[in-house]
Structures are given as structure tokens and as C-alpha cells.
């Protein structure tokens, strides 16, 4: 796959690349479908109840039914809404989410693009989605969604900074922005993975990542009980599905990023276990990250918006900066 990029761009090569991309898109859609299903199941079990268990065997077709319902709904656009922006906003939110997955190394040889600035590529694209959310809030011509959009913009911008700062520690340790090299630099034993040496960075990253995803406890933009669904309140049908899709693709992306940066990528925790293929380890670690996010959703209440801002700027940013300093000092001392 990787060497296709080095070859000249013929129609055949283009066709192959397109086929892989479409295949990946379908896989992502499959992931989203079952991530939603598992979220509902896991949260249900944590709340003493079964999640969906009727549609299809064990309720496996629940999301399929939901998506089908969303697709066949009437496409309502409020009368006074800004039509073009209203239609554009979900697309702007979703496209970067999918595009950002291009640089992740899922296994030793499975990567779409081996960019030397892979990490920066991810951070840059994920910021574009914020524009989509603000646009959605504005274009709906609804005070609630405007409030939600504004809140979301403030939140996402505020937490981008600690997120990227926490990654700097990893970059310092690895010496490269290339995601493949970051994985390779992590050792074969689980204590050599980055989450232990970079424990502060890991903590900051987790909190900032959950805030970037707009998930509980930081799900103010969609605070159902306060703003009645915030920025996507006027969206229904397929456009709403796009926003939800974007959110779940981002959970995939963040889980993959966590795995790559801190949890050793495709490495097995113990070298003697490496008969299990790397892709499987990657998926196991990713699943654990995703499960952790569901677990938080079932357990924690929501943080208020001003407390959220305080948390981001006054706690996480200084911690991330401290992490960078400590990493630099230790690295210098160990040389």
C-alpha cells in the first residue's frame, strides 16, 4: 500500500487507492455502527438494564435500524436558516474526521500515508471540524443552537492546546512527528510504552481528548438537559446522522491516536505474545480506549462551562507545559 504512493499516478493506481479508501470508509462505518451499539449495551449494563436486544439477534441490528430511520426522514431546513451553510456544516464536520485517519499506522505494513509530519497533520485536520460545528450552530437560526455552537467552539479551541502540548512530550522522547517512528520507538514490553514515562502527558492527553470529542463529562455542546441538544437541535435525518458519524469517527481517531502515541501501537505487551498479529493488538488497545470513554459517560456528571474553561486553561495547560519541561530536562540528563 505504501509503495503505491511512490509510483506514478496512473489510472490503475488511482483506482486501487480509491478502492482501498472506500474499503476503509466502509470499515469505519461498520466500526461506527457497532461502537454505537456497544455504547448503548455497555451503558445499559452499567445501569442494571439490558441495552438494545430486540432488533436482530442480540439487538445487533439496532444501529442499522436507527440509521435507516434517519435516512428516510424528511429533510427539514428551518425557514430562516442560512441554507448553504446549513447544508455545508455537517460535511465540514465529517470530512476532516475521516481524512485524519490517513496517517495512522495500524500495523507494521498497514498505513495509508507515511507522512513525516503525521501527528501535525492529525492535529490540523481535527481543528477544521470545529468550524463545522460553529457553522451548524449559526446557520440554524436558533438561539439554543447558537449558544451550543459558541460553547462548543470555545471548548474545542481551549482543549486543542493542552492536547497538542501533551503530544510534544512524546515527540521529544521520539524525536520525530512521524507516527510510524513513534510506534517503533516504543519497546516490546509494556513498561516501555510511552504512557509510563509520560504519565503526566498521558493524563493531560486523555482529559483533553475527551473534551475534544464533546463527550461526557465535557458534553456541554450537546447538553440535552440544558440546551436541548445544542448545536444540532435543528438538524434531522441524514444531516444529523452526519454529525453523529463525525463524533464517532473522532472517537476512533482519538482511540487510535492514544494507542499509537502512548500504548505502543501494534506492539504486544510481552514479546512472547507477538505471535498474535499486530493489527489485533492495535484493535484490542483501541477497544479498551473506546470502552473507557463509554465508562466515563455512564458514570460522571457534566462539568459546567466556566469550570470547563478553568480546567482547560488553568490546570491542563500548565501541566502539559510542565510535562514538556520535565521531559526535556530528563532527556538532557540521560544523554
Amino acid at each position, binding site marked *: 500500500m505504501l509503495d503505491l504512493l511512490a509510483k506514478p499516478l496512473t489510472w490503475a493506481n488511482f483506482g486501487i487507492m480509491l478502492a482501498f479508501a472506500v474499503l476503509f470508509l466502509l470499515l469505519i462505518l461498520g466500526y461506527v455502527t457497532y461502537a454505537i451499539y456497544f455504547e448503548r449495551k455497555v451503558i445499559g449494563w452499567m445501569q442494571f438494564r439490558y441495552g438494545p436486544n430486540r432488533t436482530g439477534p442480540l439487538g445487533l441490528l439496532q444501529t442499522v435500524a436507527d440509521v435507516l430511520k434517519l435516512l428516510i426522514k424528511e429533510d427539514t431546513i428551518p425557514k430562516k436558516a442560512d441554507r448553504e451553510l446549513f447544508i455545508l456544516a455537517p460535511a465540514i464536520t465529517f470530512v476532516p474526521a475521516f481524512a485524519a485517519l490517513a496517517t495512522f499506522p495500524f500495523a507494521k505494513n498497514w498505513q495509508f500515508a507515511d507522512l513525516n509530519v503525521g501527528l501535525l497533520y492529525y492535529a490540523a485536520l481535527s481543528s477544521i471540524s470545529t468550524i463545522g460545528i460553529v457553522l451548524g450552530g449559526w446557520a440554524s437560526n436558533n438561539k439554543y443552537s447558537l449558544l451550543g455552537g459558541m460553547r462548543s467552539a470555545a471548548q474545542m479551541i481551549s482543549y486543542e492546546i493542552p492536547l497538542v502540548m501533551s503530544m510534544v512530550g512524546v515527540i521529544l522522547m521520539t524525536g520525530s512527528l512521524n507516527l510510524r517512528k513513534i510506534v517503533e520507538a516504543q519497546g516490546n514490553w509494556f513498561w516501555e510504552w510511552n504512557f509510563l514515562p509520560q504519565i503526566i502527558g498521558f493524563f493531560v492527553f486523555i482529559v483533553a481528548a475527551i473534551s475534544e470529542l464533546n463527550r461526557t463529562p465535557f*458534553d456541554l455542546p450537546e447538553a440535552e438537559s440544558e440546551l436541548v441538544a445544542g448545536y444540532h437541535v435543528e438538524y434531522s435525518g441524514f444531516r444529523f446522522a452526519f454529525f453523529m458519524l463525525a463524533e464517532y469517527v473522532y472517537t476512533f481517531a482519538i482511540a487510535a491516536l492514544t494507542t499509537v502515541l502512548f500504548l505502543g501501537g501494534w506492539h504486544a505487551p510481552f514479546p512472547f505474545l507477538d505471535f498474535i498479529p499486530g493489527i489485533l493488538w492495535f484493535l484490542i488497545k483501541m477497544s479498551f480506549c473506546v470502552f473507557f470513554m463509554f465508562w466515563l459517560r455512564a458514570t460522571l*456528571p457534566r*462539568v459546567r462551562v466556566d469550570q470547563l474553561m478553568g480546567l482547560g486553561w488553568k490546570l491542563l495547560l500548565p501541566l502539559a507545559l510542565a510535562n514538556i519541561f520535565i521531559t526535556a530536562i530528563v532527556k538532557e540528563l540521560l544523554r
Partner: protein
Amino acid sequence: MIRTEELLLNVGPQHPSTHGVLRIIVKLDGEIITEAIPVIGYLHRGTEKLAEDLTYTQIIPYTDRMDYVSAMTNNYVICHAVETLMQLEVPERAQYLRLIVMELQRIASHLVWWGTYLLDIGALSPFLFAFKDREIIINLFNELCGARLTYNYMRVGGVKWDAPEGWIQKVRDFVTHMREQLKTYDNLVSGNEIFLARIKGIGKYTAEEAINYGLSGANLRCTGVKWDLRKDMPYGIYDRFEFDVPVGQNGDCYDRYIIRLEEIRQSLRILEQAVEQFPEGEIMGKVPRVIRPPEGEVYVRIESPRGEIGCHIVSKGKDKPYRLKFRRPSFVNLQILPKLLVGQPMANMITILGGVDIVLGEVDC
């Protein structure tokens, strides 16, 4: 210069967190509320006017639907009012049954409050835990009087149905179970930093304001005023039981939260004592077939989970009241909301509103 405008936001009658059809017109300056005007009356069903055409026994089902989360106390207030007016005596077993169902109802109502309050704050799971425990109580009531929410259980002079076989034992088991559950609730929620940051220091008011506004229940006790009608103006057989009245100090949402959880514990204490003392006997006193209180006027007040619920009856000696007025605690408690909301960020509106614990059926009557 940027010209800023005040934003008029309608927290509309349909809203997941207003606990019913309550409309609050909120004027916002950015995220800060500058004025809040509650608009009620969406659930006004004219109970007081209807009561003028109904006999006293016929009014009892209507009272269930006022504060539908706490229907037993509503039943009790009107039965108690008529019994005071007629100076009837209620037999012991009926008194005990009434007390047991009222305390169970208090626990059920506080569980609903707890679950929905946390749902508003954003935690999804406590809601389901609370409702699971409430199911036990509802099933007990179902066994006792056939209904899950609107019981129509009490009558002037006693109660309608007797406790079936084994019911008292189930109440005993519930007490033990609930004590364990309260520990789980505390573990899950009460120490959580996010939760504490959300509700500590929010929605404060002083004792003078509380008394001036006529607040009652946990809303009054959170400021330090120790006033519980079960102890200060006892009715029924409450004076036979030992229980404490939790009192807060700061007058904020956190105190109200702790007080209500503690009230559940105290209700469990009362229930424990009541099932030990539960007597045999009649469940209905000597009451004429047609309840015709003599001419006169009476106002009784009891402690419902939301505060002081009162019933003012003006009787002209007929079998229907001349004027029946309910003093509803949620109606009076809601008056302080505009004052509490000024200067708060939007996000606190739901926290404060939830802390007041209103039920719209009662606000509108």
C-alpha cells in the same frame, strides 16, 4: 465598539429539565442571566373549582394528581382536614398504615428527585438506580391499593384497603435494602468532584429570605431553620417516633441535596419503628355514610416531601365543600426562583431549578 444585545431565551414549556410544563423567560447577557420570569398555569386543571361540586370522598382522586410524585401525602392532607373539621377519630391501624405509606412515599419522591436532578446535571446512571429502587416501593403500593402512581388510598376516617399478608415483612426488607443502596448512591455521586463543583455554593439564600418567601421543606431547612411539621406541629401519630430532622447551614444546592438524602434515611428509621409497632384493628373509623362536616373552617398543614402542603376547607354543612383551597409547596417554593437566578450563568439555571424540587402538577393545581 461591539454592540451587544440582550438575548431573550425561552426555556419553553417543553423542556427535558423543567420537570413538567414550566416556562421560564430568561434574559441573557452572554451567558449570564439578567432576569428570569417563570410562567406557570400550563397544567392548571381547576381542581379547586371542581371540588366545589364533588363530595369529599370524590375529591380524593383529584388530590392524587396534584403532586403526582407524592400522592399519598396529598390524600392525607384532605382526609386530615375533613377529620379535623368533623373531629373524627381514626383507628390505630389506619393511622399506622397511613404513616407507613406516607414515609414510603417520601422515600419514593426523594428518589425521583435524586435521579432526575442528577440526570439534569449530566450523570445518566443514578437515574436508573433510583428508579429501580423506587420500583420496589411502587410495587408495594400496587399490592396495597392497586395503583402505581395515583392511589386514592385514604378515606375520611381511615384507609380503604388493609395491608395484605406479608406486606409488612416486605416493608421491613425494603428498609434494609434501601440502607445499602444509599451507601451505593453516596459512593457513586456524593463525593464526585465534578458533581460537587456543580452544586456547592450555587443558589444560596439566607434564612430570612427563606422565611419571608414562605419556603418549606428542604428549601427552608437548608438555611439552618429547623422547621419540620412532623415535629413542630405534629399530626397523626408522628409524635410517637424517634427521628431527626436534618438541617443545613449554607442555604445552597449542596445542602438541599444532603438534606434530602438524609431525609430518606430518617424515613427509613421511622418505617422501622412503625412496622415494629404495627397494631391489629380496624382500618376505617366510625364515619357516617355521607360525610357532612359541620359548618366551619379549617386549615391543616402536613409535611410533604416538597414542603408544607396545606388544605383550607370552608364548609357550610353540606356534603360538598364551599371552598377548598390547597396550599401547594411547589407553588410557593417556586416564587424564589427569579431572585435566585439573577446573575447566574445559564448552566446553573437547571441546577437551581432542580434543587428547588417542584412538581408542576402541584404548582398549577
